[in-house]
């Protein structure tokens, strides 16, 4: 077993401290050490998008980062998206209203990307082509993307 390194990461606004092996990826750290299992692993090579989180406010594949790299940084996962009072974020609610999820496995990553898009657009309406391009970094085998696209067009 290799050395362990102490890290301090702000996850969904809460400072979390741990000692981790360098090879532990950030997705596994969130899932297995912090038990935030909403961040899913689908490919471990950065293509499927299920593990997408916000890293210092920008989307990132958590399977392509090591937990040690998050030391001193801020991470937002799906568990930090709804309001503290439990109200779903409008993006989450729209996905349900438009049947933008079926098995739900890709959903947390999709929500995170839509959060980033919403922030970046800041009220400027998005064209469907541009939206689909932004979503092309997520693989969904269930929905054919249409419900996701409709949900996003509804709230962005």
């Amino acid at each position, binding site marked *: *077993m290799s050395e362990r390194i102490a890290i301090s990461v702000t996850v969904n606004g809460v400072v979390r401290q741990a000692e981790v092996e360098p090879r532990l990826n950030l997705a596994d750290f969130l899932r297995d050490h912090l038990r935030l299992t909403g961040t899913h*692993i689908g490919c471990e090579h950065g293509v499927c998008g299920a593990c997408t989180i916000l890293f210092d406010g920008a989307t990132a594949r958590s399977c392509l980062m090591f937990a040690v790299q998050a030391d001193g940084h801020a991470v937002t996962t799906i568990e930090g998206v709804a309001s503290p009072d439990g109200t779903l974020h409008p993006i989450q609610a729209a996905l349900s209203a438009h049947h933008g999820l079926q*098995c739900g496995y890709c959903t947390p990553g999709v929500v995170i990307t839509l959060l980033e898009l919403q922030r970046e657009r800041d009220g400027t309406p998005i064209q469907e082509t541009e939206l689909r391009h932004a979503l092309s970094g997520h693989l969904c*085998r269930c929905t*054919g993307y249409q419900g996701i696209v409709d949900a996003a067009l509804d709230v962005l």
Partner: protein
Amino acid sequence: MAFEYAPVPLMNTPAPLFGQSIRRLEDDALLRGKGRYIADIALPGMLHATFLRSAVAHGRLLSIDVSAAEALPGVHRVFTYADLRPSLTCDRIPLAMPSGAIRFDVDPYVLAKDEVCHVGEPIALVIADSRAIAEDAFGLIGVEIESLPAIVDPRLGLADGAPQARLDCKDNLVARMTAQYGDADHAFAHAAHVVDAQFHLHKGGGHSIETRGVVARFDAEERLLTLWDSTQMPHQAKRMLVKTLGLDESQIRVIAPDVGGGFGPKFVFHPEELAIAAAAMLMRAPIRWIEDRLENFTATTQERDQYWQISAAADADGRLLGIRGRLIHDHGAYTPYGVALPYNSATNLLGPYVLPNYRLDISLCLTNLIPATPTRGAGRPQGTFVMERLLDRLARKTGLDRAEIRRRNLISPDQMPYRTGLTTRDGGAMIYDSGDYVESQRRALNFAQWDDFETRRQAARKEGRYLGIGLANYVEGSGRGPFESASVRIGPSGKIVVTTGAAAQGQGTVTMLAQLVADVLGVRPETINVIAGDTAASPLGLGAFASRQAVTAGNAAHRAASIVREKILQVASSWMEVSAEDLELADGRVRIKGAPQMGRTFAEIAGALDGMPGYALPAGTSPGLAAANDYQPSALTYCNGTHVAEAEVDPATGVVRLTRYTVVHDCGRLINPMLVDGQVIGGVVHGIGSTLYEMMIFGEDGQPQTGTYADYLLPTADVVPRIAVHHMESPTNLNPLGIKGAGESGTIAASAAVTAAVEDALREFGVEIGELPITPSRLFALLKAAR
């Protein structure tokens, strides 16, 4: 015993929820990241497993030395076949399905015994403190394999003198069968038009975004094995474990937790499910194995190659006289799913058309590749593809419009029920129960503005763009039996609990069942707890395959709820001394019509039926407010539809872009149109993937060349067109609710429609597409040859 086609009276449509697009009960937890998938399950003291897999496609396993690996700190144990065999009742996992056509069943071993037959076949099982450590051990396991020739192309595998794909099978022809009726040769002898074609059809894997996974825990005191399994078929998994581990039914519980997509491969019981269960019993510790994506590419069953040589004969008016030909099917290294896949291709070829004569000779070849088993569509898209491409070629030959030649051949509604000349794979007559195929095509052409297309084509052509349009009709036999179970129980808490042997992987099964039961019992669906996919909750069950769960579990749950309703009315009528006709169910109560304050809660009624020691039950009823039903469909019910695709093709690069997509879909009565739309659209996109992008490539040595999603391409949001779905509702009279399956049907016509559109866009070049997927380089090669 064969099924008998037996119509039943159609119920009046329940109300008020039936037919409404209510939101899914599943969504809230999933949207919050609070789903519980297999990899989310963590048990105290849990160890982690990985499988050392064969790096060669075919070889004789000479020796395995695990001593150095077992000495690695953090490694608990390395199991080989010899280590696990004493815990098992049999050498091989008895997966074989009954089929007269199979010449020899080739069931897999739990781990390779003395021969490896495909890259990715499990050889050794490493148990360690973490997945990472278990992978560290791989390099320390000494495996000696004598390489043997590999069969990769089934056509070569069937040639005289071909090497054996397996040393335990004397040749590679694992099954041969003929689907036929009438006299095809006679039909060809008298035909005005004949077209001949060859097709090499490839269909890819299931590719649920969640891979497979198993968590097993054995409680030695209770002698209870609990297996959490990312499966479509928990009851099937339990049956296999009972057979192979020598435990009885009370000692095994299989739970499918939230499952992140199925699409076919999770139907199949894979060796890892048994290996992890056996290891947990031997180790006396919970063990988790989560397949990684590379394993998913090399060890999860997939659909693959079919080679068709096929001809169609028609009379002078373009009416089909006969189809005959030969199909060679790449079956892979084992036979975990019988002959269903190519048989579905053969039967679905008929489609919604009158075909008087038919003969298809089917050969299944063992290869040194991953076993081929159904993925969404299950061989049907290939059959539909072949029929629809033949019709387009006949249209060209006869000069008829592609829609017109289909219209002339469609089965008309007054021919329903329509008996085809074939039997289904479970032995029953293949009978289309209902549907208006002519109207389906008419509406689809109308919605897709088929008649105006030439104007659009010409306008685009002036801009230098090449547009094409394609059309395909299909049917799908859905709701396969023999049964599905459901129970509805209300205890003294008043909570309504529905259990079922159905299993959900995203279809919305929980919502669908809650919606049906809520209508019967007059409650809101969110007050109902639906438990699916747990063998402890439902002693009998089958699970998810063949677009069947709304039909089978839906009717079972509806029937069970109706019995519970009758019991509520009976007890309340007796207690309240009013006639049952004067009572109604609403908001979890039974009450007097017109006097809603006069009533009893379900909890009160359930409490009374729960029994008090020594006191009689009310109104002479039987104990418990519960009912169970095992719904047994008498035959398949056939959904149908029409797809129209429009594509733009860049002849300079071979790049295809889909611009429009129209579906008319008829699955009988719709329980929840939103869910059906989701199934259809998802299915279409899966079909688009098979047609344009997904290609599992192997080298001549059987090495997979596509093991990541950078190599193997799934359709993404930017290449998928908006898909317009229009419903028709032709109820079936094969089940009381009048419903048909919808889970796979979107997939079935997509390849045919898209290919037709691409060919049409390039019609001035005279390109004929015979190979899927249609990649840019393949299209370029066709264009180059045509020029």
